[in-house]
């Protein structure tokens, strides 16, 4: 089975013949079917597909929160055996901040888990909050922040350990459209500054095309990769781009595939 060649670059994500069958009691759900792809280090890749096709299942496998039924999964050439936030950062659909901690303490949480010294924790948390533009808001509690700000804190928490890869499961789905656009630009800015590999699950084709270098299109359940599209649109991306003929053409192509798959 170990046919994969080990690529030394940090942040490379390799997935080979990944299959996931959920079992709950008697019922089995075939979520992912024989998925293979490779993401070169530093790329921004989106995963799209119809609801229930297994996108979240894939992400849970990628961050080590679930065990695959079969197949292989490597980040930076090493298998993913369990959660490893220092290597693989994760941001969920809901910010899921701890309401009893301030924004800063939430960002410090993964560092606290690693028993890092208070001083080091504070420095890193400050840097991460600054990166997401919230250095002024460290002492606020989550309920004192807007939805977009909460999600930015969650991103800061995901990248505070400077992981090579950032995995995001519909991180902006709970936000309104305007905030969503702003957050997308924000994420691109962070991505460009840090050079991390980003795996970005989303429902929005526009968002996927706007942000990504590559888009992986999954079929309806059981999820298979039915297309991998390179987005060669120039960067920095602008809002006007979303109404260009080329953009619309790509979007139609993806939509056609999702619809007919």
């Amino acid at each position: 089975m170990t046919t994969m060649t080990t690529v030394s670059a940090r942040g490379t994500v390799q997935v080979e013949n990944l299959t996931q069958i959920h079992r709950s009691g008697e019922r089995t759900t075939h979520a992912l079917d024989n998925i293979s792809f490779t993401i070169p280090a530093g790329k921004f890749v989106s995963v799209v597909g119809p609801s229930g096709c297994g996108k979240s299942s894939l992400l849970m496998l990628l961050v080590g929160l679930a065990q695959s039924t079969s197949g292989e999964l490597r980040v930076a050439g090493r298998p993913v055996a369990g959660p490893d936030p220092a290597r693989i950062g994760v941001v969920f659909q809901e910010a899921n901040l701890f309401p009893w901690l301030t924004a800063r303490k939430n960002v410090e949480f993964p560092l606290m888990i690693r028993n890092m010294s208070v001083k080091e924790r504070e420095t890193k948390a400050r840097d991460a909050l600054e990166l997401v533009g919230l250095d002024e808001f460290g002492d606020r509690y989550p309920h004192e922040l807007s939805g977009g700000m909460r999600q930015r804190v969650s991103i800061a928490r995901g990248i505070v350990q400077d992981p090579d890869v950032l995995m995001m499961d519909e991180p902006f789905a709970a936000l309104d459209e305007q905030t969503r656009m702003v957050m997308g630009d924000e994420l691109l800015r962070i991505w460009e500054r840090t050079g991390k590999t980003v795996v970005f699950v989303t429902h929005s084709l526009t968002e996927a095309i706007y942000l990504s270098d590559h888009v992986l299109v999954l079929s309806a359940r059981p999820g298979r990769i039915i297309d991998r599209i390179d987005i060669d649109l120039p960067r920095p991306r602008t809002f006007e781009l979303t109404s260009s003929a080329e953009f619309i053409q790509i979007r139609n192509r993806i939509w056609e595939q999702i619809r007919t798959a």
Partner: protein
Amino acid sequence: MALFAIPDWVVRSALVVGFLAVWELGSRTGMVDPRLLPAASTVIGTALSLLETAAFRAHLWTTIAQTMAAFIIAVPVGAILGLLIAERPYASEVLKPLVFFVFSIPKSIFLPMFILAFGIGFGQKVAFGVFSAIFIMMMTAFAAVESVKREHLMVARAMGASFIQTLRSVYAPSMAPVLLEAVRLAMIFNFTGILLAEMYASRSGVGNQMGLWGQNFMIDRLLAGILIVSVLAILFNEVVRALETRLEHWR
């Protein structure tokens, strides 16, 4: 609710003073038999002089120490046991009804068993105090687990938190608001259990002294004991309340 805009605490104090005055008058005028109900001033005087004797203070400390020890054991152990049971489907199914069942049995009937098992010393009192208080903590923990968000547990897991770390950083703050309500009850059950155990069979403690005074018809001391225990109960309650306010921001 303010009565004629008089602060609540003034009304409350007035009620207490009024009660003491009626008691004092009733006893002094002979409306009630002073041998059965000595005057309030007499009882307060007795209480103060009791507190001055080293022997009584030793009994008092014994009771306080036993109560605190049992409390410090029962609260976390009950909460963690309850959590462990609630988080395991099989254990939940089997053990939850049993805990409810044991909770509903009056704990006092087990006192003779505790004497057989632990003797009549400090350890037995603490054990009985723990036994009296632990079930309310467990049952409350069953309910409190519901307020732990699965997403928060997932975040902890994604960050590589160990079970102990998750316990401290997710379970404890999530469950605290619900658990805190039971902590006060646990203190009451615990204190009741300790005093009962002292009255039933003991060589020391306030409960033991009060039992003796009752048997010897020393009414003034008995009432002084009641007064002291009441104040002690209020103090325990205030300690728990102070704890609650310190943990308030977890809500």
